């Protein structure tokens, strides 16, 4: 996936163990390439290992993965059908804790 101009891009950020699988902290995706979170995540999961890190089955997130769009949990929005567009930041987060 190639880098695209910021104006037309949306950003996918990977955290913690998911970041290790993807090998990078974030990627930029052309905004027109995905209309919702499901399409977006499918487009960045370009290997079986990456797919297993995010999805339990086709169209179903792993139970321990939280996805945020602009800091809001998609479970509080429209789930995987939450629309995404230019400038949005999507975060893929496994469980973590501070202290």
């Amino acid at each position, binding site marked *: 996936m190639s880098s695209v101009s910021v104006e037309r891009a949306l950003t996918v*950020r990977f*955290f*913690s*163990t998911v*970041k290790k699988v993807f090998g990078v*902290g974030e990627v930029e995706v052309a905004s027109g390439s995905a209309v919702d979170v499901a399409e977006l995540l499918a487009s960045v999961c370009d290997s079986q290992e990456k797919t297993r890190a995010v999805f339990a089955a086709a169209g179903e997130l792993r139970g*321990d993965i*939280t996805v*945020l769009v*602009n*800091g*809001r*949990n998609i*479970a*509080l929005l429209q789930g995987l059908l939450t629309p995404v567009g230019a400038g949005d*930041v999507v*975060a893929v*987060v*496994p*469980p*973590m*804790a*501070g*202290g």
Partner: protein
Amino acid sequence: MMYGWTGNILRVDLTTGTTTVEPLDRDKAKNYIGGRGLGVKYLYDEIDPAVDALSPQNKLLFVTGPLTGTGAPGANRYVVVTKSPLTGCIANSTAAGDFACTMKYAGYDLIILEGKSEKPVYLWIDDDRIELRDAAEIWGLDSEETIKAVQKATSLRAKVACIGPAGENLVRFACVMNDAGRAAGRSGVGAVMGSKNLKAVAVHGTKGVKVADRAGFYQAMDAAFKTLEYEYVEEFHQTGTPGVLSLVHEFGVLPTRNFSVGVNDFADKISGETLADTLSVRKRMGVACPGCPVACGRVTKISTGKFAGQGFGPEYETIGMFGSNCGVDDFEAIAAANFVCNRMGMDTISTGNSIASAMEMFEKGLIPESDIGFPLEFGDADAIVKLAQMTADREGFGDVLADGSYRMGEKYGTTDYFMGVKKQEFPSYDPRGLQGMGLGYATGPRGACHIRGEAQDLDLYGVMNWRLTADRGLEVLDPLRSDDKPPLVKDVQDWFTMIDSCGMCNFMFFLMVDEDQMRQLIETATGVDMGGYEGFMRTGERVFNIETLFNRRAGITNEWDTLPKRMLETPMPAGPAKGQVVRLAEMLPEYYELRGWDDNGNISDAKREELGLA
């Protein structure tokens, strides 16, 4: 014969130099378990909560739990319980490491330290042999030097809890340090120890801990370990608690420039991944306390330059307070400030938060440069290290910081820039984007705190693997919603009260153990029937309520169950939580009602009777 508990209390009168061993009260043990709960019960029964926290009339209790030292996962904690010189409230600061298990193996559930020694002393406990020794030669040493010196004088196998110069200088947020880098960190328990002229407690123990139902206990332990989420544990090995910083920033609640905003453009520079890639000494495995599969501890090293040094940490909270909240993106300076706090024995949260408050007050012209000695602006990396040392030494402006940022605000005419609750500074979560956290902060008996009811975990992650969410059928929570939070916050506070009382680490309950598993561990260890889930939670509720009774008797009314004006009235200016304030006024009445308290936050007679509180 008691199981789980040793059944012994060591009482040390520092005024007379006498020590006695007395039996643990079985009813108190059953009803208050250990650690935080047992500690507050004994303190509540033995002192007038209205006493001056730094007077000989206050007592200092070291309290283990019935699971401490049993081999249960993460069961390596003790709690230091006293009246806080920072807040005037109950103080209960927990620490992990080797000290707690060794205290238990020496044969003591509690050490009650009372009075005040005429001269500096340290306490040496070698199983049944107990001595108070002269500490003149180690008074003034930092915590790392103290531990080494005491071990040299006693036994290299001794485990040592001590104060550093901050405790000696009565810094109101001084810690008790143990095992080099582990801290009973908050609320100034180290200052109380300093006020008693007690430099250290060294223990060596050879006794074990007996459990009531060995087969049942092993079965409960096995079940707990089997639910461990190994994938996440691996992450803890590598980034420890700093790993969460990026996520907190993603939610827009990473305190930045004295809680002015929850996002910034330098979070990547101070993330857990950055720490692991740069200053961390052990890249793949953290440092573990006894019996802990998580190994969240960090060791960092700065090889060259003005901040050169090595030590434990920094933890996430430290990075948040010295880093983003002070506007500092220099990881070496953050680590160096952390080293100073650990060596001096000082709470990194209150230190960093107070410096951030001073930075804002300086920039607004409320604190003159002549008082500080130099211009103190956000982003000044050198200043955080320098001021941490000055605070520990009560040197110059450090003498002002050493009393905490609430009192600093009073000195300079406004407490509007104090970011905390009950005179204790906030840790690294801006509650405007975490409504449950806002209620938890406001109502916590020891003041602002993130680990006395981890409401931020519910807010950040939606739900945990706990019954208090599963029984409600909850699959996700909205951190910006307030109407559903009062019952959840009440329950999570009671649940974490039990965690702090049993002797286990919070992280066990984040990664694996739920309420029933913990209850089974306690029941099989002690032989006490807790009355199922309801009885278990009622015990937590009892402890939480007696802490509130302690505060009320200390003169702390519910007027202190509030938040800074900035959190209540100034909308978050940017980020995912933009436009939010904490809607505390909407949540507090329902919370009081659920607790069985009246409108003034006083515990009703019916609730006191229900919980067996006289």
